[in-house]
């Protein structure tokens, strides 16, 4: 009975990851995309633990999930620092500026 619950929760998480991907693909600023990637990373951590429960290989997947959580945090902080320095977060503005300079 519990394995069916885990399977249903895993499928729901995969669907929610695809919904979050909409914000990553269509966010107006770069920082919106970073927020979406951060949410996907948190969901993936939980998803890895659930996969470990389903396949009964918990001691292996727990280390992968821990590494993924650390990597997600470091990637978010690094991307924030990069875009804080570069001062441009609107992709449309950059495209418009490129058109003006080329025309």
């Amino acid at each position, binding site marked *: 009975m519990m394995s069916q619950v885990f399977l249903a*929760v895993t499928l729901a998480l995969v669907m929610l990851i695809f919904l979050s991907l909409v914000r990553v693909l269509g966010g107006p600023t770069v*920082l919106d995309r970073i927020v979406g990637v*951060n949410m996907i990373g948190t969901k993936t951590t*939980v998803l890895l633990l659930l996969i470990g429960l389903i396949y009964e290989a918990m001691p292996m997947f727990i280390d992968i999930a821990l590494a993924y959580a650390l990597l997600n945090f470091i990637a978010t902080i690094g991307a*924030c*620092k990069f875009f804080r320095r570069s001062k441009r977060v609107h992709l449309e503005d950059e495209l418009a500026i490129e058109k003006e300079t080329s025309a």
Partner: protein
Amino acid sequence: MNWVVSLLLVSGVFFFAIGTIGILRLPDFYSRLHAAGKCDTLAATLAVSAIALYNLHDLSFGSILVSWKVFAIIFFIFMASPTATHAITKAALLVGVEPWLKKKGVRK
């Protein structure tokens, strides 16, 4: 035991769904961060603690070690997710992403 684990898992997925709807539907960058930061932290804490609790149903040294590592993940997410949200907000404020206002240009 199984009911508690199921309840925690389902409530975790519920809050994940609320957060996802929030970042899809809210009108402005800062309100989207509000949905993403809080719902994500709470949902991950609930779901991962359910997994740690289910892992303890046969008590042995190995399962206690694995559950201790799962609690390390909970602690790390609880510290790191609000920190990441704060860093994103500070970057947005410094770069100058405009908040959503009722009248345009009231607060500059």
